[in-house]
């Protein structure tokens, strides 16, 4: 508590900022649940409970005050990001272990909120997809499983899964292109795809876009990261599809598939692990887009946003250092 000026404070807090972020995710979650069943809601609840429990336990062990840190909602944001990037029918322990890893290893072992160099949710995703590649690749198709079937998958033991899940659209497209030699156009006509991207997913990502616009309007995030990320991704996709229309889908498909929207507005914009200077944000997001695109088309994982985020997190100190804005009066005369 300070006895010195300024004595006026804008009514704002970390909790409010985080609450706005959670609110902005809500439409995407609603659409997700509408198309893919209640599994995601269960996963969100599991992740939230686990995150709060781990956070409280670790704060207690570190001898830090528990209440304000739980109330700041940062652990909940991490939990929701994990739930949204994990398959909604994964077993319950998968998301609990992932959340524990995010909170304990990726956050508290680095010193807690504000000190973690990597996005905790993405660390959890990366660890889990390496450790449990099969479980992490089982996604339900739109309207494919009812609530009880999903609950059975999450909490039950037996998983005869291949019979009931579809490959993710990005996966389907890539395997289709590689194995069957089919063209993009014919693949996109398949039952799994809708108007511009995967059936169902295109609406979920559109809802995340809506949430992102809300964050921009509320000035929680700046335009730099979403514009640079989506712009670079669109540019790469357009160029590739112009050069080889049969091998690469266009910009719209790229933007509305996988975690592009979630990444642009909710993951890369995490201020703790992201770049902070205006120019730095542009470089950071453009780099993430490039890596995402490369992993999507030439890598072995369903989507590249997580690894792109982590790799760019690694570059943040350098980017920030090299892009310090000119200080008042020290600008070059232009």
């Amino acid at each position: 508590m300070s006895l010195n000026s300024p004595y006026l404070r804008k009514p704002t807090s970390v909790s409010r900022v985080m609450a706005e972020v959670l609110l902005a995710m809500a439409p995407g979650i609603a659409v997700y649940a509408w198309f893919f069943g209640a599994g995601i809601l269960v996963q969100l609840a599991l992740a939230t409970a686990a995150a709060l429990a781990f956070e409280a336990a670790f704060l207690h062990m570190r001898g830090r005050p528990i209440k304000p840190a739980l109330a700041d909602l940062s652990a909940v944001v991490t939990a929701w990001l994990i739930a949204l990037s994990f398959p909604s029918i994964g077993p319950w322990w998968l998301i609990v272990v992932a959340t524990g890893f995010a909170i304990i290893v990726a956050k508290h072992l680095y010193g807690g909120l504000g000190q973690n160099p990597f996005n905790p949710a993405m660390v959890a995703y990366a660890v889990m997809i390496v450790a449990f590649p099969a479980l992490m690749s089982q996604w339900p198709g739109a309207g494919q499983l009812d609530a009880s079937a999903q609950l059975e998958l999450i909490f039950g033991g037996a998983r005869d899964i291949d019979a009931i899940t579809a490959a993710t659209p990005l996966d389907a497209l890539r395997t289709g292109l590689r194995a069957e030699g089919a063209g993009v156009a014919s693949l996109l006509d398949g039952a799994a795809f809708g108007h511009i991207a995967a059936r169902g997913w295109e609406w979920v990502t559109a809802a995340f876009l809506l949430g992102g616009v809300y964050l921009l309007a509320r000035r929680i995030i700046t335009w730099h990261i979403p514009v640079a990320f989506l712009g670079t991704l669109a540019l790469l996709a357009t160029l590739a599809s112009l050069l080889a229309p049969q091998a690469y889908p266009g910009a719209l498909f790229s933007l509305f598939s996988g975690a592009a929207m979630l990444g642009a507005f909710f993951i890369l914009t995490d201020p703790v692990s992201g770049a902070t200077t205006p120019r730095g944000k542009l470089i950071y997001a453009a780099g993430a887009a490039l890596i995402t695109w490369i992993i999507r088309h030439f890598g072995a994982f369903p989507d590249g946003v997580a690894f792109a985020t982590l790799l760019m997190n690694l570059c943040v100190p350098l980017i920030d250092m090299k892009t310090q804005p000119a200080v008042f009066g020290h600008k070059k005369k232009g």
Partner: protein
Amino acid sequence: MLQKLFKFNGGVKPATNKAASTRDPIKPVPMPRQLVVPLHQHVGGTPHPLVEAGEQVLKGQRIGAADGNVSSAIHAPTSGRVLAIEPRVMAHSSGLSSLSVVIEPDGEDRWIDTAPMPWRSMSPDEIRDELRDAGIVGLGGAVFPSHLKLKPGNEGTHTLVINGAECEPFITCDDLLMRERGDQIVRGALIMQAMLKAQRVLVGIEDNKPEAIAQMQAAVQRNGTTSMQVIAIPTRYPAGGAKQLIRVLTGIEVPHGRRSTDYGVQCFNTGTAYAIADAVEKGRPLISRIVTVAGNVERPGNYEVLFGTPMDHLAALAGIKADTDRFIMGGPMMGFRMPAYDVPVVKATNCVLVGSEALFPAPAPEMACIRCGECARACPADLQPFELYWHSRAKNFGKAQEYHLFDCIECGCCAYVCPSHIPLVDYYRFAKSEVWARERQKDAADVARERFEFRNERIEREKREKAEKLAAKTAASRAAASSAPGAEQGEAAPAAASTAADDSKKALIAAAMARAKAQRDAADQAAAPVATPPASAPDSAPATTAPAPQDRSI
């Protein structure tokens, strides 16, 4: 003629809270029982007192002479008797004391003989000396001696900026001065314009003060000058920062460590312009100013206050509310909490902001920085405040300086917007004062090292010279001995001589000690009735007379 305006980045828009204190005109203050006039009220050297305790002084009489050119004079605010010249608690966050002249008013308020300055026939240097001796300093809060700024830059000064922006919430003293005394502000500005040989004068006023803008425009018109323009600028804190205002009006950015004159611009507060007109036209030195009393009071308002008036005497006129827990000098964004209620109003006091827990609640507990960048977006100096915070907190001052710590103007915008409620400015103040302390320490160490090495060299040299002399002597005596008998004698003689010299020295010291002892005994007897020896010089009195700085609650 429409002036093109520029923008500065960042800034915030807190509630201005100015309406309440602008309802009434500027009011006078009844004479307090005592005036405590600190000698050091400005940037630069501390004036030395020109009066002694018991002496009668007249209103406007110089009681402190400028210490060198980077200093300013101090005057008696009213006629009366000097009660004491002693350390008194300053209007400063430290709670330390500084040498002050305590005056008991005689109620007559009798002026010294004053006469207008024939400034048009005086040389610029003469005018500047007069202004220094009239105690004119910047009244916007920086209290930099004005005479030092009234010199055209090396490549001339094209623009004189008069700062009427007054961006801090609650403060309205410049507003009221412009509304009521615009004509004299204009005349003062014209004197400054003439001294600077500036082509134009721009008066910048935030557009939330339409009445002041109208009054100033009318005053300019009445005066008939064509080179002066009154310009409304957008209301955004800290538009009244000198560098920000210069940027808004001229587009020029003056970096830290450079003077605006190097860029052909000079900036003065409206109150300073008014004070200069007083000094030049009436020969009256600076002994009072307009002070806003606002915050936790019944009737916020503006008063014309003599320097040295205790703040509680002033604030009582506005009706201090019961739950008051502090006085703040200045506004809520940059003001400083006073160590006591009765500290005197000084030249830097633009506002006595009466505070309470209800009005300025303590911020929520400090939380971790999440690097959200709100502070960077709010910073008018285009800094990365969270980086500065990071390094200041880690006491990594070198890094903090790399991130331009000293470009920070401590405006408080970053702390105002911080969602983690981090007292960011406190960290910068801490870091800055640590850096200054280290520089002082390093300078002192460098001087000591140099003097130590010089002394060692000197001692070496003296030893060498002595040895050479001795060698020469020995050689000479050897030569003598070889030609005469009794060679050993020659060796023994110097040794005997040196013991003799030592003995005589010891005897001398013993004698001196005995003398001193006798003197001391005599002195002790003489001084017996007096309880204690007189204290050391007042200005070196230990700081323990002031409350400890960390306990600034009042």
